């Protein structure tokens, strides 16, 4: 069997080769789709191999090339990395099945380009996950932005172009103006960029500078969608729904909060960060984003836009919990990376299914649709309950830990934010469930329809089930995380 090091490098190589294969097989759609599936399954297998290596105590570190004296492109694995990699690669398999149904059902053009860019984006996500230092992470982070641009602007019309401009504009501005200077400043102050237990900045920075650096990172990682650098998320909703589902509910946004969490734990170090003045401002900012984004979501009629603002809100849960610096809250934050992924991808899958089956995209059109599309809307209900945080869904588990963390440090602000946002979430999700199942159709549809194509229903059923299973079977993840916090 191959070594964990080799498997880790292959997680970036295999999707890249897959992209080439997909490009070459463009003329035979079924074989091309098979190529995507094979690549996705192989990738997941490789990630499992790395997980086994991590659990078995293998030493996992690969230095690829020295970019500058003292800083190289290097990869390693730790609990956060493997979590992110598993979520992204596992859900890619499901999304590929879904995408087949969606792209063919909606009659989208340029499908080869779509699948190729998807594969490249996944390779970049793996690079972000397994990076051993900030420079490597930055490189793959930028590749992720650039490779998702063709996906966001897939439709090629004026709206897609405008959405793409906002997307690229905000993300590139954040990266170039804030993130890159923050990284270089870190390098000049600490002499290294390696992710290290306990951080690398303690003792290397004046107190006021540390605050500034923290906020440079917070705003620089635009993919974390903390306000005011959040507008790229709703703008990216012009993309076809599989893109919104995997990339903007899972891979891209999780790359953002993953980066922020890595910076908090391995660059600053939780102990040092506690001593940085005005660190709690970060908590307040994230808390504000949670509530404000939920409030905006309440007023949206377009399903995907509502889900986009919900995502912004949920991402700030993670950021807020990370910045709260309580052990239980850290656990909750990492749990939420997984929980939110399962729930949100289900919701986006449903949005796409409704679009393909009924050609509807607005919430006001959803009256009575539960009777025509029972499986789809049940999955929606499960995903929505997960967002609200109701047992027995995944969202409940992470919320439990975050609340426990808030009590650990008597952080009443976090508590209030959680209560308020739970109410708001209920306010915009529950009415949809209600009107889908219990209100009669306002007008009969133009064309009678049933469920969406089978691949799509299969996919959303799978993720909804995962959302439920996570409630019961989150033990392994908890163990993984305890090594993170304990270390």
């Amino acid at each position, binding site marked *: 069997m191959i070594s964990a090091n080799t498997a880790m490098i292959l997680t970036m190589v295999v999707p890249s080769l897959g992209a080439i294969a997909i490009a070459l097989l463009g003329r035979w759609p079924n074989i091309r789709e098979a190529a995507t599936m094979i690549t996705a399954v192989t990738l997941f297998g490789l990630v499992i191999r790395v997980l086994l290596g991590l659990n078995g105590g293998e030493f996992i570190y690969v230095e690829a*090339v*020295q*970019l*500058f*004296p003292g800083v190289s492109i290097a990869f390693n694995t730790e609990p956060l990395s493997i979590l992110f990699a598993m979520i992204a690669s596992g859900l890619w398999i499901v999304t590929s099945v879904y995408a087949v149904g969606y792209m063919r059902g909606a009659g989208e053009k340029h499908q080869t380009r779509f699948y190729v860019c998807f594969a490249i984006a996944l390779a970049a996500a793996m690079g972000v996950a397994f990076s051993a230092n900030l*420079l490597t992470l*930055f*490189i793959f982070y*930028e*590749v992720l932005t*650039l490779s998702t641009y063709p996906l966001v*602007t897939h439709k*090629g019309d004026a709206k*897609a*172009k405008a959405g793409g*401009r906002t997307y*690229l*504009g905000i993300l*590139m*501005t954040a990266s*170039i*103006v804030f993130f*890159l*200077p923050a990284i*270089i*400043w870190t*390098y*000049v102050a600490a002499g290294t960029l390696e992710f290290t237990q306990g951080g690398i900045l303690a003792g290397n920075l004046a107190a006021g500078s540390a605050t500034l650096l923290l906020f440079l990172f917070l705003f620089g990682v635009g993919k974390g969608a903390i306000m005011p650098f959040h507008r790229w998320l709703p703008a990216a909703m012009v993309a076809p729904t599989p893109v919104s589902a995997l990339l903007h509910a899972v891979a891209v946004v999780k790359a953002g909060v993953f980066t922020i969490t890595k910076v908090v734990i391995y660059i600053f170090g939780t102990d040092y960060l506690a001593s940085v003045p005005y660190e709690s401002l970060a908590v307040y900012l994230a808390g504000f984003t949670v509530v404000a984004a939920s409030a905006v979501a309440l007023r949206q009629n377009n399903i995907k836009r509502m889900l986009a603002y919900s995502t912004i809100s949920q991402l700030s849960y993670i950021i807020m919990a990370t910045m709260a610096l309580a052990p239980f809250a850290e656990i909750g934050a990492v749990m939420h990376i997984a929980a939110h992924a399962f729930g949100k991808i289900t919701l986006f899958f449903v949005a796409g299914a409704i679009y393909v089956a009924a050609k509807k995209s607005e919430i006001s059109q959803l009256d009575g649709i539960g009777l025509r599309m029972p499986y789809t809307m049940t999955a929606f209900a499960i995903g929505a309950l997960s967002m609200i945080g109701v047992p027995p869904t995944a969202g409940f588990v992470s919320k439990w830990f975050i609340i426990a963390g808030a009590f650990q440090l008597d952080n009443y602000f976090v508590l209030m934010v959680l209560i308020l946002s739970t109410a708001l979430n209920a306010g915009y999700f529950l009415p949809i469930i209600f009107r889908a199942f219990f209100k009669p159709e306002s007008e009969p549809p133009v064309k009678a329809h049933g469920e969406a194509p089978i691949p799509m229903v299969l996919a959303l059923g799978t993720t909804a089930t995962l959302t439920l299973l996570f409630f019961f079977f989150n033990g392994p993840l908890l163990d993984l995380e305890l090594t993170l916090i304990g270390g």
Partner: protein
Amino acid sequence: MLTHLPVLIVLGPLLAAPLVAVMRGGRWPWAIATLVTWFSFLCSMLLLAHVANYGVFSYALGGWEPPWGIEYRVDLANALLLLLITGLASVILPYARLSIRQEVGDDKAPLFYSAQLLQMLGLCGITVTGDAFNVFVFLEISSLATYALIAMGRDRKALTSSFSYLVMGTIGATFYLIGIGFLYVMTGTLNMADLAERLPEIQDSATVRTAFAFIVTGIALKLALFPLHLWLPNAYTYAPSAVTAFMGATATKVAVYVLIRFIFTVFGAPFSFGQEPLAEVLIPLAIIGLLSASSVSVAQPNIKRMLAYSSVAQIGYIVLGIAMGTAMGLTAALLHMFNHGLMKGALFMTLGAVAYRMGGTNLDQMRGLARTMPLTFWAFVFGGLSLIGVPLTVGFVSKWYLIMAAVELGWWPVVAVIVVGSMLAVIYIGRVVEAGWFQEPDNPERKEAPMSLLIPVWILIAANLYFGIDTRLTVDIAEAAAVQLMAGGNAP
């Protein structure tokens, strides 16, 4: 032969130029010019290897010992630049065959190749020589050749652009000459190493300080430092594509090198930064040039002109690095000198390919390029990413060092200026990429550019990516060169 390397680089083209000029048509002028250029490239590679291993290479022209004879003195800084000049020329000449045939015409093509050889040898000569007056001689050779080359452009404005460049360039060269004259009066020598030895005793004299001012100003004009850059946009826009590609990537870099040589080697950093207000003058001008040129770029309808203004901005980056006065800043400047040459060479050649098929380089002609000329379009995208400074490209390497140099000094406003410049680059490159990707082409029947244009373009794009990942060659040499230069005139 190895002992004569520096002079061979210059001698080959010098002998070939008149030969090529009198040839009548056919492939011979192009073939001879290309072969001679490749020979010079080979020599510069050998020279770099030699200097990297054994230290400064000193060559006495004609066997006359310095400081009375002319000395060619090659250390790491100019070896790197020589590699860039000859390397770019080697890639651009094969490209020029078709491009020049279309833009200049078969009858004038031999004159093009002759002038191109003269320009290249002039630039190489400036780089390789250790004698201040010799710099002027080669400066005039390369400049006169450049004026002729620009005038060969298709548009009638090429003539006026060439003429105004001629006037400004001559003023610049004359300022430089006056400065050299003052130095000669005060020291009795023209050899740079000798000057470096003699100047410290007399550096307080008004003559020497005036000489410094004249030299820096004269070079600043050739460098296109704001506000002495007015000749550049027109000259770059109306010259033939192959000329802009070579000139845009090398001519200003050579002027940068001369500036560095005088500031650090001849006058020495303590005098230039300590006694003279060099940093106080250069930094504001560099910043204004950077920001204003980048902003103007955004609005240009002609993409070639847009890239010309972009070049003025990039010169601002390089001068900023020099003006920092630290080894890290100088490393960044030398790195960007090399990397920008690669970037702009690739981008201007890409535009030349567009001009070959589309007849021009306006934004209108870039519409739908992704569909009609995909290879050309993607070359522009990658070159543009390099200009923006995306990781894994050479642009990122330069940007990293530049920001690091500014952070080390604690110059946070300068960091802000550098990143704002990058953001503006995103906008002006993004504009072209959007037009090529989203808009419908005017004529969907257009074909891709011919292979002999595309292969040189992609060689340079590959170089952009290769040197963005394997930075050992550029970074190690730039760092070592910076250390050598900071040590001053008579470092071994």
